């Protein structure tokens, strides 16, 4: 079961690019990397998922190096509304691995004016 390590908190300013790195040294061959965002008083919300290299969608990019032992969530030009907790998860979702996921404490991102 791959354990993840990410910074407890980060600060940024509106308009900047934010990169949050997650370490997962014992990631398994079949594991995917997923990031979730959580606002206060709400459940987490899926942001992006990837297996290797780079994945981009309308809200973020996910960079995964060749050894897959870490990953970086990139949020372009953040706004105040991006202030939230961000979770990095690693798991074999194809085999129904959500029952083995560990969310951890996440990274608390604060975006300032």
């Amino acid at each position, binding site marked *: 079961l791959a354990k993840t390590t990410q910074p407890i908190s980060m600060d940024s300013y509106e308009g900047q690019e934010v990169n949050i790195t997650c370490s997962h040294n014992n990631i398994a061959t079949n594991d995917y990397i*997923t990031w979730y965002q959580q606002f206060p008083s709400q459940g987490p919300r899926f942001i992006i998922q990837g297996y290797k290299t780079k994945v981009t969608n309308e809200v973020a990019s996910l960079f995964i190096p060749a050894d897959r032992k870490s990953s970086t969530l990139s949020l372009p030009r953040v706004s105040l509304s991006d202030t939230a907790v961000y979770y990095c998860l690693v798991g074999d979702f194809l085999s*129904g691995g*959500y029952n083995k996921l560990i*969310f*951890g*404490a996440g990274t608390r991102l604060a975006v300032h004016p």
Partner: protein
Amino acid sequence: DAGITQSPRHKVTETGTPVTLRCHQTENHRYMYWYRQDPGHGLRLIHYSYGVKDTDKGEVSDGYSVSRSKTEDFLLTLESATSSQTSVYFCAISESKAGNYEQYFGPGTRLTVT
């Protein structure tokens, strides 16, 4: 929101009383999950279900039981509530969508045990 609702949204109860939380989904998802979230912690899995009458334990299942008698409802029961079970409880479903394997979470139930 994948059609997930939770009830009640808030509840205050006394130590030793039984409590049942309900998760309801409208999109026929097979997998359903119950998590709890405490200050400074991420979500911890309590129980999950992979079909009607098919359930299994998660990371923190002690003191909790679940039932799933029909696809749309997943019930979480605290047989005898304790103050350590004061928490926010989230229900979730999982599905494959556009090549991704995602979980969708309900709005949460804030439970206070006095």
